[in-house]
């Protein structure tokens, strides 16, 4: 049987199924995908594309979001969507925009590029810099799980200091990741990206607002969303929202908004802000810090990072 025949058969069956079981949701990213229950990234991604609207074309990096939503010959996407490679969605996005320009459609159709932290912080980093330099009117969304989730939780450039990953094990000579998370926010600002914002899966309304705000601004836009990874972080499948909030409340992940390089919004930490331990305790990836006698000192280092974020981004 050729692929074309197989595809024909399968598509026929799917159409019948659609008739029989009317899709209960009307999102642009639909159920039926194969992400883990309670995935922070999929929650965020659904709201991002809904806020962008149906006149949007997506260029998606390789990663969990791609692999869980596009098993051939099915797709969860109700907008035109392309996946090329791990490191190139930003350049693919530039190409889409150029084609739209040549068709006279660039004012009507939006281009959304999305990738995980591996694609954004590491392997696709140079191409993102190129896209920002070109000044393309593209929204780039990074879904940051702080780990290579799709390949089974290895350290990326976004992995926090001290976190346990499959390539940053705690042991006799290590307390987890010896490196520090890259500051993508400031890297974007250094490119003079006119709209730069961060948020987390804990704040759905904030995600929606920021996506809409981004589209009011012409030029490159970057939204960095911390999206808890249930198995990668070792949290429960009902915790993505709560942990996403706690990351902000502790100052561990600052939620801010910059327009033309100016800090215009910063989500304040509560008066009685929780200590970083409260955040760390939720994760298996930081468990070793509480067992190992050397952990105390490291927790203090992480608390210092939180305090520094609070001071730097005026989160109090």
């Amino acid at each position, binding site marked *: 049987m050729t692929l074309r025949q197989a595809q024909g058969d399968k598509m026929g069956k799917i159409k019948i199924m659609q008739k029989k079981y009317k899709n209960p949701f009307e999102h642009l990213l639909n159920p039926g995908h194969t992400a883990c229950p309670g995935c922070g990234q999929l929650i965020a991604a659904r709201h991002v594309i809904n806020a962008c609207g149906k006149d949007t074309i997506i260029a998606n990096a390789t990663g969990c979001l791609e692999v869980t939503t596009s098993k051939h010959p099915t797709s969860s996407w*109700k907008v035109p969507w392309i996946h090329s490679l791990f490191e190139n969605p930003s*350049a693919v996005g530039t190409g889409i925009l150029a084609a739209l320009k040549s*068709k006279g459609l660039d004012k009507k159709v939006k281009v959304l590029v999305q990738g995980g932290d591996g694609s954004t912080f590491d392997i696709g980093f140079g191409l993102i810099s190129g896209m920002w330099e070109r000044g393309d009117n593209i929204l780039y969304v990074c879904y940051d799980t702080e780990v290579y989730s799709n390949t089974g939780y290895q350290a990326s450039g976004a992995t926090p200091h001290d976190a346990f990953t499959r390539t940053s094990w705690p042991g006799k000579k290590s307390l987890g990741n010896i490196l520090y998370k890259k500051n993508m926010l400031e890297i974007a600002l250094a490119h003079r990206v006119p709209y730069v914002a961060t948020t987390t899966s804990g704040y759905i309304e904030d995600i929606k607002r920021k996506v809409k705000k981004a589209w009011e601004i012409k030029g490159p836009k970057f939204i960095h969303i911390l999206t808890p990874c249930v198995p990668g972080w070792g949290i429960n499948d009902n915790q993505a929202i709560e942990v996403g909030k706690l990351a902000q409340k502790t100052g561990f992940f600052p939620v801010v908004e910059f327009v033309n390089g100016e800090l215009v919004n910063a989500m304040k930490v509560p008066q009685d802000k929780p200590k970083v331990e409260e955040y760390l305790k939720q994760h298996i990836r930081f468990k070793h810090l509480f067992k190992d006698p050397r952990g105390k000192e490291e927790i203090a280092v992480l608390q210092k990072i939180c305090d520094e974020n609070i001071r730097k981004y005026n989160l109090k």
Partner: protein
Amino acid sequence: MAEIVHRIKPAVVSAYPITPQTHIVEDLAKMKAEGLADFEYINTESEFAAASVVLGASATGVRTYTATSSQGLLLMTEVLFNIAGLRLPVVITCANRAVSSPINIWNDQQDSVTIRDAGWIQLYGETNQEVIDLHILGFKLAESLMLPVMVNMDGFALTHTYEPVEIPEESLIKKFLPAYVPPKDTILDVNNPRSLGTFATPDRYMEIRQELFEDVAAAKKEIVKLNSEFKKVFGRGLGDNGLVEQYKTKDASIILVAMGSVCGTIKEVIDGLRDKGQKVGLLKIISFRPFPDDEIGAILNKAKYIGVIDKSISIGTEGVLASDLKRACFGKIKAPVKSFVVGLGGRDVTEKMIVDIFEMAKGKNNGTQFVGK
């Protein structure tokens, strides 16, 4: 080159500079700056990005073009496989150049032959006229089969050589190559949302690859067909049938097989040797992918000696074209096929070397022979 690309009217051009491709994209950028061209011209930060830009544009349903060379082509490799798998009709010019290390900016064909398995149609021109014509044919071929096409021209030997050429008028080109109409269901269109580049599990992947294999192999027929159409419109064709060109092979007892600009030198030598009564000929390969297996077998079966001239090597085996030729001719011809490697890293290929190779083709050495002096 820039002029013919301009007349072919791509909608999006994206490139990154590399010797000896640079002047092609410089001139395209200049045309854009002077308001002479309608295409979107995108400078990128690497060849990897340039290939990705044309991928994205092509997937959005417009005609696209890029050009590169050597390291640039190798840097693009991952994207090139992807473009073919996505069945996008991108056309690329490869200004053939040696591959590092040692770093060397001069001509050989190691770059393009190295990515022969990427799923692209690969065509090689002997002269600048042929290269121009191959671009017109290449775009038509790409768009009719939804397959990417790479047109190869030897760096410096062609890219930096002045030759009189006829660049057809836009109206004539349009007659052969009308505006690109993309297939409706496989492009990025908000009115007809589709997912492209989805992932295939083991129960699907193999058939998709098989389909690509079969379609590239079947492209031979389309090349032959388009070549006769091309002849009707432009009054000249590419070789005998768009796939190969025979030069004095009919009664030849020794036939050399080669591709690219070296064929010009070989033809000169053949003329000289023929004057001296030697029955020698040349089989020029234009279409390296798909490889014209049957055509080649039929041409070579009467020759007594066959020598294949490569400007590349598959290290650990022999010349790349030589291997392909042996495979294509297996069981079809009796003559021994010998592998000769010439011109690596821009070493001049002289008439004397070709004369020597005609002699060596009759010899007993069956190993790969490097002819550099």
